[in-house]
């Protein structure tokens, strides 16, 4: 099954690359650099989805104490961090030629950065824990606090931003102004990235399950 999905993902991503680089029309003002938008936006979408799944997985783990939910949450957190990193890397690459600056302390950018920091510390807590059970509980607590804290971060940064009259920057056009071909490419890209995410999550959860089995079988010797 997983192999089959991998095939589908590979095909979808290849078509996606074709759509992004060959088919989608070049944006008049921004030029080719605008194409990064088709990677940036789906990554952001996947990152938020991933952190939502961490939240659900953490709640389920604390309720049922079943290892599979912890595996699910932590695998999702790892992917969330990877996709957020992609967002944070592709964003400035796009912003420099278009806005003329790498970074602005805009509400979405700042919130994403704080989110990334929270989940990096989530992963660090896991790797600095003494045992597996401890790592699961601590990270579940963090996974829940991180998401509940998110609206507060958003409000604080938003008000702070308004207060200081930052440069107001947007992508320039809302979705209504998006060329139909561009919109198709974006939606296709969302689909391709989602399938990639599903496959990665599935594979990572499977790996974690295998790790658990190995740990169970070698517990006799050492505790690690």
């Amino acid at each position, binding site marked *: 099954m997983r192999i089959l999905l991998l095939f589908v993902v590979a095909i979808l991503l290849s078509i996606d690359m074709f759509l992004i680089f060959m088919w989608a029309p070049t944006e008049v003002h921004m030029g080719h650099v605008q194409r990064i938008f088709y990677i940036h936006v789906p990554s952001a979408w996947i990152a938020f989805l991933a952190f939502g799944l961490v939240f659900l997985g953490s709640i389920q783990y604390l309720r049922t104490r079943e290892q599979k939910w912890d595996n699910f949450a932590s695998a999702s957190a790892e992917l969330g961090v990877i996709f957020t990193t992609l967002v944070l890397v592709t964003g400035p690459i796009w912003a420099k030629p278009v806005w003329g600056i790498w970074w602005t302390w805009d509400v979405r950018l700042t919130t994403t950065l704080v989110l990334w920091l929270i989940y990096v510390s989530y992963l*660090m807590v896991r790797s600095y824990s003494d045992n597996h059970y401890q790592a699961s509980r601590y990270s579940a607590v963090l996974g829940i606090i991180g998401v*509940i804290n998110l609206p507060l971060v958003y409000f604080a940064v938003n008000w702070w931003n*308004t207060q200081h009259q930052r440069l107001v920057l947007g992508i320039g056009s809302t979705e209504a102004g998006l060329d139909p071909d561009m919109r198709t490419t974006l939606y296709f890209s969302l689909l391709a990235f989602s399938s990639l995410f599903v496959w990665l999550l599935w594979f990572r959860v499977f790996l974690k399950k295998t790790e658990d089995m190995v740990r169970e079988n070698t517990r006799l010797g050492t505790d690690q």
Partner: protein
Amino acid sequence: MRDFIRPVFVIAWKDIMLELRTKDIVVSALVFALMVIVIFNFALNITPPMVDSLAPGILWLAFAFAGVLAMGRAFITEGDQGSLDGLLLCPVSRDAIFLGKMSSMFLFMVLIESLVLPIFVVLFNFDSISFKLIAIVLLGTLGFATCGTLFSSIAFNLRSREIMLPLLFFPVVTPIIIACVEASLGVITDTVNIIGTGRWIGLISVFDAIFLVLCPWAFGIVMEE
């Protein structure tokens, strides 16, 4: 209700007694906060006209850094001779243990702040202290102490706990740091700002309320063995 409040007081009082005898937390964090202020003076080259606009940032960073240092020691003393196990074996709820620990941390931080503020006033000729500012400091400190105590209990059990506490603490308290700095700035410079100091204070209160509910619950999960 009485049965719940009493253990909170007893645990907080135990920490206060311990602190009165060792003076570990308050002295080290206080000196550290003063260092931060002095270093900021050199780093930013503060002149009298700039003091009002820079004061909130410097003060809150000093409080946050000193706070994280103090918080890091919240459970260290409990680590000796398994006294944490003793505490957990007490027939009181985990919530009460958390609130007791949190209250003592809150008191220590308020004590540090009440010593740092007058020194700041003297060093920088800062004359904008008001009751409103003190109220904001107290509200913000409550949020710091709540989050800090929880993360201290998490970091206490981790390897390299000294580095893990700030890494866990600072991203989560970002909203409260922003809100405290902005609210203090509004009060100090007394300018009518777009957002309004009231809304910032509202945000701090919401943060405090959420974490006062969330942290005792999370503490129960962290401390289960």
